[in-house]
């Protein structure tokens, strides 16, 4: 089955892409890897008149670490994110999450920028990026603005990227000294599914093994990926005992606002958030610090 015909623009720079997008010609969409947009088009859920492909923009698929800060271009594939050695060493939860998306042949096309713009609530990379205090870079007609990841997901499949703007990449600061982190994903049916729920966490234990900085984020737990701030507050300043972990997991389950869909009911998701927050925090007690 063919896609419905559309015009294709292939700009060679970000300013050119923004300029092309400013010309209002029917329903225009940006295409990155196409792993979300093309199925959506094939299902007839969207029928764009024009696609603007970012694949010819040099440098947009670069992954770079400089002065301890990670820069990932919007067109970097999830496979590239998962295997980049400096990224794996400094931001292992992001590499783990990218490596758990779908299957190898999807990860080799799907991009980090596309994943963010699709704004799937059950995104694997999103909770990792939420824990890492990521800055999202968005180009517009006057230049570039930076959106904190906490303000990026604005609603069900909605983001802070306005029509005419282009997400160009993310900037991820170094994790705090001594931090440990990870990402876990629960799929009740098949490993290549999007997660029923996903949990990322980053935390620092002080010399007395009390929790200092702690960040927990959830996928599939609300209409957007979210930080579990009540769960974080429950554990902060406490020793990471079984009891504290259970209380934090209960808090995460309570603050989640999951939806029901074909993968699972809201109630099931809530129960699984409880289980997997507990399992991840328990595992992180024994995980070696990142740096």
């Amino acid at each position, binding site marked *: 089955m063919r896609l419905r015909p559309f015009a294709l623009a292939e700009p060679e720079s970000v300013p050119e892409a923004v300029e092309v997008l400013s010309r209002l010609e029917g329903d225009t969409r940006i295409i990155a890897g196409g792993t979300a947009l093309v*199925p959506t088009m094939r299902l007839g859920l969207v029928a764009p008149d024009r696609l603007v492909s970012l694949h010819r923009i040099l440098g947009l698929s670069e992954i770079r670490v400089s002065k301890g800060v990670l820069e990932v271009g919007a067109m970097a594939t999830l496979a590239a994110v998962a295997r980049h050695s400096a990224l794996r060493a400094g931001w292992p939860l992001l590499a783990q999450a990218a490596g758990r998306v779908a299957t190898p042949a999807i990860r080799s096309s799907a991009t980090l920028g596309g994943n963010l713009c699709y704004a799937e609530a059950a995104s694997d990379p999103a909770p990792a990026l939420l824990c890492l205090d990521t800055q999202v870079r968005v180009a517009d007609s006057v230049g570039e603005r930076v959106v904190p990841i906490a303000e990026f997901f604005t609603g069900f499949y909605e983001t802070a990227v306005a029509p005419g703007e282009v997400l160009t990449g993310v900037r991820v600061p170094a994790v705090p000294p001594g931090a440990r982190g990870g990402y876990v994903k629960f799929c009740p049916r098949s490993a290549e599914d999007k997660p029923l729920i996903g949990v990322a966490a980053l935390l620092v234990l002080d010399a007395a093994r009390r929790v200092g900085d702690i960040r927990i984020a959830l996928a599939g737990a609300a209409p957007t990926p979210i930080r579990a701030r009540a769960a974080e507050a429950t554990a902060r300043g406490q020793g990471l005992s079984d009891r504290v972990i259970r209380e934090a997991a209960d808090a995460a389950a309570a603050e989640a606002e999951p939806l029901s869909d074909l993968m699972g009911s809201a109630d099931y998701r809530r129960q699984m958030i409880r289980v997997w927050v507990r399992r991840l925090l328990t595992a992180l007690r024994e995980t070696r610090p990142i740096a």
Partner: protein
Amino acid sequence: MIALDFTLNDRPCRVEAPAHWTVLDLLRDGLALNGTKYGCGEGVCGTCTVLLDGEPVRSCLVLASRLRGRTVITVEGLDRDGEPGPLQAAFARAGAVQCGFCTPGMLLSARALLAANPAPTEHDVREALAGNLCRCTGYTKIIEAVLAAAGGG
């Protein structure tokens, strides 16, 4: 129409295609290479898998314009001088083909795995083939075939 210049199964290929064609449309309808199958059209089933610069991709999801300057391998590129290549021979020997519809995608996912990891474990094979569905439920033989091909058998 867009003009495309790329390498297809080790030979230069210059072709024109409508802008809305996917790589799969181009292979099957533009170039009459019908070994690559249309399954689900949504990137789930894996039978349309081809190698793009050595990496497995879903040809039903990738726009043909992405091919410029790149290297594509399809199932038609796996033979050796008209005889089945090592992976194909291993599939035949192990009985890893039932209806055969998933086979092209299985072969190319397996080829990408063996290029990156010449001595995979069974777990590695299962991970690499996780996105290739076989509805004859023939996974056991397929995994045996990939392991046999890796072992030189």
